[in-house]
């Protein structure tokens, strides 16, 4: 004790020192990783040279030479591989975005129903969740695709409300055709969208001053439907529909949802909804029952208790795992290749790769796209999570 140095605790030998060791190990790890990548890089370059494959992104400007079954942007076989990239990307995004929306709505409804006091309802949801979560997604996609292909041929297509048709070549729906004066309806819609936050703020001010509660939700709903409807009446319904008509081998007019899209979108949605249902259930149950009891004892009604007490606390538990479900759905959409839905992987990452042989560039670009989409979703959800995070202390 008496001889202890005032320079701080005594250090042992250099080899057993904690800090020295940490630095040495990190340097070693960095060195090994660097060696690995240099080796891989030089090896690839040498092999590509031996095979006579040129590297670079020049192939993006050369014609693709193959057709894509479904495209949101104009595309013909003479367009470039670069355009195929965007066609595939848009197809991936459209199935991912619509899938996320459908899975969220269905999942939240199922999660709440799972907590229902009605025995039959909660059991039904329980079995839905168990079945959908425990059957491989690829099998489900193949199953629903099979079901859709089992629909009758165009000649015997099943009419729905006389205007829509289900056939093995897809769902044929009326296509909306905007006429003169459609602009007014769109303006009316945006006026409603702008008016809602203004009304909400005014309602809050009024409540703070007079205590009167204004039905913001119902007013908003009325505005957003009513204003465009009013504009439509004034302009004499400028929206017409192009109805699909049965031709010899195919439908004429209307628009079509391809069976590949429907099968993929449907399977991704119901599969992910099963997981989201469990996340929502767990989130609501994580809020102690005492919270509900306290709110009830203060006279708050059940729907307000849910909105103001339970949901704000449940969301902080729900959002992080929900994010990973969104990421899963987006990445799972690459299973499209199994049923020939022309997403990014099956077009650009499949056919284009086979035709050009530019494996490294194409795989890297495809991986980068998924990485970018995933990081974007993560960023958005993290931002949202931070906003709703529980400020407790």
């Amino acid at each position, binding site marked *: 004790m008496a001889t202890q140095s005032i320079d701080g605790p005594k250090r042992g030998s250099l080899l057993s020192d904690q800090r020295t060791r940490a630095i040495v190990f990190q340097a070693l790890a960095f060195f090994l990783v660097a060696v690995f990548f240099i080796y891989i890089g030089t090896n690839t370059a040498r092999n590509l040279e031996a095979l006579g494959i040129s590297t670079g992104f020049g192939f993006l400007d050369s014609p693709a030479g193959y057709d894509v079954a479904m495209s949101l942007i104009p595309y013909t076989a003479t367009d470039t591989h670069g355009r195929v990239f965007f066609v595939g990307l848009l197809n991936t995004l459209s199935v991912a975005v619509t899938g996320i929306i459908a899975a969220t709505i269905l999942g939240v409804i199922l999660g709440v129903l799972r907590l229902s006091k009605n025995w039959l309802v909660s059991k039904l949801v329980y079995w839905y969740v168990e079945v959908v979560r425990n059957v491989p997604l690829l099998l489900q996609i193949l199953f629903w695709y099979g079901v859709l292909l089992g629909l009758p041929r165009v000649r015997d297509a099943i009419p729905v409300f006389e205007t829509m048709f289900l056939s093995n070549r897809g769902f044929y729906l009326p296509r909306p055709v905007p006429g003169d004066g459609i602009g007014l309806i769109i303006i009316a819609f945006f006026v409603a969208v702008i008016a809602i936050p203004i009304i909400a703020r005014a309602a809050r001010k009024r*409540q703070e001053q007079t205590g009167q509660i204004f039905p913001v939700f119902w007013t908003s709903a009325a505005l957003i439907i009513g204003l465009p409807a009013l504009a439509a009446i004034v302009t004499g319904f400028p929206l017409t529909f192009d109805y699909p008509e049965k031709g010899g081998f195919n439908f004429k007019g209307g628009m079509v949802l391809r069976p590949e899209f429907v099968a993929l979108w449907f399977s991704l949605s119901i599969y992910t909804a099963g997981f989201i249902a469990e996340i929502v259930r767990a989130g609501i149950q994580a809020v102690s029952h005492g919270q509900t009891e306290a709110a009830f004892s*203060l006279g708050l009604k059940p729907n307000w208790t849910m909105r103001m007490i339970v949901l704000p606390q449940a969301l902080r538990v729900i959002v992080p795992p929900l994010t990973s479900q969104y990421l899963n759905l987006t990445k799972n959409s690459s299973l499209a290749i199994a049923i020939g839905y022309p997403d990014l992987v099956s077009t650009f990452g499949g056919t284009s790769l086979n035709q050009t042989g530019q494996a490294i560039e194409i795989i890297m670009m495809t991986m980068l796209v998924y990485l970018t989409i995933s990081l974007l979703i993560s960023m958005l959800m993290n931002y949202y999570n931070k906003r709703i995070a*529980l400020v407790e202390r």
Partner: protein
Amino acid sequence: MSDAVQRVSTPGVSDEVAIQIIGMHKWYGQFHVLKDINLTVRRGERIVVCGPSGSGKSTMIRCINRLEEHQQGQIIVDDIELTGNLKNIDAIRREVGMCFQHFNLFPHLTVLENCTLAPIWVRKVPKAQAEEIAMEFLNKVRIPEQAAKYPGQLSGGQQQRVAIARSLCMSPRIMLFDEPTSALDPEMIAEVLEVMVNLAETGMTMICVTHEMGFARKVADRVIFMDGGEIIEQNEPEEFFNNPQSERTQQFLSQILAH
């Protein structure tokens, strides 16, 4: 036992009936939790309910604001009968305040917001006025300086005092206390009991499930002993403690007064 307990002075008990429970029964599945409960509480009366755990004390007072449903008999609060009628349930819950063993403050709202939420959304009080009322009651429970904090930043005793203030902001005519001090450290029990004594002095009708016998002697007009889902004995505190009638009451009292 000393007889020299300093009783609090309160505005007397009126003849008006605040709560009437007639032949109430409750079952959890096969388990008969409450058996033929009959109880009349007058306005301004302070009742302490005690008994061993599992005797149905909490369940009984939770039936009064319908946090639990009774299956047989009648509960009439402020001349309103508790039935499946949601309007009646809402009306009764607005008049009856409750404090819980684990406080159940809303962790995502500040102390002030905890106190103003129900007045604003249930009583439709303007915000500024609701905040004024809340500050008044936070003053009464002596923690106005904590108004902007979140419940997680407060001690247990402070949280329970906020919970009492939160209930009082709804200006209830009846207050129910479900073991309000059981989850607290000894030094915090005192501060919460003090607030409850002050509340009793204002003439509030109170039913307290508690094992704080000192509080019972000081405040209660009547002490009720429950066991096995039944009201075994009820009496004025003096008689109850000094001259318990049933054997079970004697046994219970000797156990909790032993230390």
